[in-house]
């Protein structure tokens, strides 16, 4: 009798578990569809002639694949310039914010000095100011420095946004690495910089990658400052190039979406390659061990 009761309870629990799993998968599927649909639609529109873009009922798969948007974008040298500029700015901001951010985070993580808490708090509070309010002051500073309409102006500007994040992230990650490592390396004759480069950084690779991905994305996707701080076509980046296709008298949907796909590809590929590290790095940096 008792064993029948236990069996019934087990079957019941199994059923419940199956339903729970089904619920989780259903929710995940719905969320995935919601997140992925805009990307699929972007690809779909890039492969359709404009008349089909607005056809009713809407179709995800084009009746006939139209490569005109891609041909136009890929054959136009100005779009290549936008891509190259975005790469230069993105990679420079990523490199500089990682180097400076890691050194600063190392200081915050491993040393106690007068005003360190205030300095850390200050770094975090810079993230709380809405960027739009900074546009005019930044504009003035960049013009004053003679960096208006240069890629240096954009790199410097994005660095001010990316650096606080890099410091906070790397500081969080370095805090999770036991100080015993440092002490052992110091006993073996390592200098403080040697400890950072030879001991801590190899262990902190996931944190470095997640920080790098974030800063690259920030620089790659930014539109407002890229538009305001550059002037000539030779200095424009991908987001500004895409906005150029929103004309006074209409939109070039196929070209705009084709360039959007081309502009999104590096980010998508990058994220897919390092996704494992990004998730690990974010969670490790977010929780102090």
């Amino acid at each position, binding site marked *: 009798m008792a064993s029948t009761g236990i069996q019934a309870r087990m079957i019941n629990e199994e059923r419940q578990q199956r339903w729970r799993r089904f619920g989780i998968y259903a929710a995940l599927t719905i969320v995935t569809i919601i997140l992925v649909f805009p990307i699929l639609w972007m690809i779909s529109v890039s492969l359709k002639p404009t*008349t089909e*873009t607005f056809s009713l009922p809407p179709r995800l798969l084009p009746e006939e694949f139209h490569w005109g948007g891609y041909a136009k974008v890929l054959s136009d040298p100005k779009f290549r310039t936008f891509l190259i500029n975005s790469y230069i700015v993105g990679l420079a901001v990523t490199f500089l914010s990682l180097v400076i951010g890691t050194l600063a985070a190392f200081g915050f993580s491993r040393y106690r000095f007068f005003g360190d808490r205030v300095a850390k708090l200050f770094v975090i509070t810079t993230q709380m100011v809405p960027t739009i309010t900074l546009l005019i002051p930044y504009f003035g500073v960049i013009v004053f420095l003679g960096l208006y309409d240069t890629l240096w102006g954009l790199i410097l500007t994005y660095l001010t946004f990316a650096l606080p994040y890099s410091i906070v992230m790397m500081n969080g990650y370095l805090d999770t690495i036991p100080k015993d490592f440092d002490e052992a390396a110091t006993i073996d004759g390592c200098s403080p910089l040697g400890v950072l480069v030879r001991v801590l950084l190899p262990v902190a690779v996931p944190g470095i990658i997640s920080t790098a991905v974030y800063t690259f994305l920030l620089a790659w996707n930014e539109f407002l400052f890229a538009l305001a701080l550059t002037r000539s*076509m030779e200095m424009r980046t991908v987001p500004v190039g895409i906005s*150029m*296709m*929103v004309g006074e008298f209409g939109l070039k949907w196929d070209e705009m979406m084709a360039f959007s796909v081309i502009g999104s590809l590096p980010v998508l590929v990058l994220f897919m390659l390092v996704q494992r590290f990004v998730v690990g790095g974010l969670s490790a940096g977010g929780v102090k061990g």
Partner: protein
Amino acid sequence: MNKFRLSAWTFAAATALTPFTTQAGQIEWLQWFAAEDTSGYYDQLVADFEAAHPDITVKLVTQPFGKVRESIVTDNAIGVGSDVLGLNMPWTKEFLDIGILEPLDEYLTREGNSFAAGDLVEAPLGKIEGHTWMVPLNAFPFVMHVNMGLVRQAGFEAPPTTWEEFAEQAKAISALEDGISGIGMPFSSQPPSNGPILTFLPLLYANGGRIMDGSTPDFDNPKVVETLQLLKDMQDEGGIAPGAASRTGGVDLEEFIAGRTGFLISPGVHSSAITGRNAELDYTLVRVPSNGEQAYRVHGWELGISASSDNKDDAWTFVNYLLSPEVNAQAAQAANALPGNLKALDVVREGADPTLIKQIDILEGDTPVEEMRQSPKAAGSWAVMTEEIQAMLRGDKTPEETAAAVQARWLELAQ
């Protein structure tokens, strides 16, 4: 050696990423026209000008249309404004209040100009605060684009010419099948949609009405009320596509191209997008249906000179070049527009797109009208118009109440 290499690399990187500084005789031309052009015409235009004027170089600064107004204001505030400015007439008063524009009266009377001021399209030249502030590069008259296939399907042989025929045909087309409508009315508040200035004003001008008395708002006059009544009646009879309050000009154009609306009131320049994207559409363009008057709304690409420019004479040399009949005709053909210099009309006709020739023919003798440039706060004014017309189409207000509400809010805005 390593230090030397590092310095050399740093210098090379700095040189590659930093453009050369401004030189004497260099002017900047901020505009959005090149962003609308796919043929590379504007680069060639600048190259031709520089070849003809070796002492002046022109830097072409291109912004997307939706950002040009903000750019001009911001650049001026920071002190990096361009010398020659591409302008939209409704921005005039706002720019004058900030002191961005240079009066052009003296330049227009200079001997040796390549054009006569009397040959230019008149609308942008009208004096505000006693001066002329801009000259027309191109003019885009508003017309009505017609899907003749739907018109015939609804039982009519010819496009409408009067308001009565217009309302009747729109209603009949809407009745054909679900998803097909007589006309779309883009009354979205979402920028850069210009709402009523795209559809309401062309109908008002074809009714002989105006919204301004000089620089004073005059929205609650009988002609305005009649035009609002037309929209209200068409809406009630189902002639207007559903969702007017969220419809933008861009969506309106795409719906017409896709063959889902019978009529589209918009600049004639849209004809190239329509025929280019849907060659199978049985398409024609006509004058906006009139209630007895022959006046059309005109939009344009205007040129002005920045008051803070250090190279005003060079800037004028460039503007003068753009307005010469030969160059102006090329600019008009490149944009599929009417030329700002009417002396260029004959040249434009030669080899022009048939739809452009049709615009020239049907609008010959009609009066071009543009009033928003006199409005103290044009962008704010059309937002008010949009909101109140939305309320009317929702059934919250009568046309009389709508006109009175816009007038009251405009007066408040003007103060």
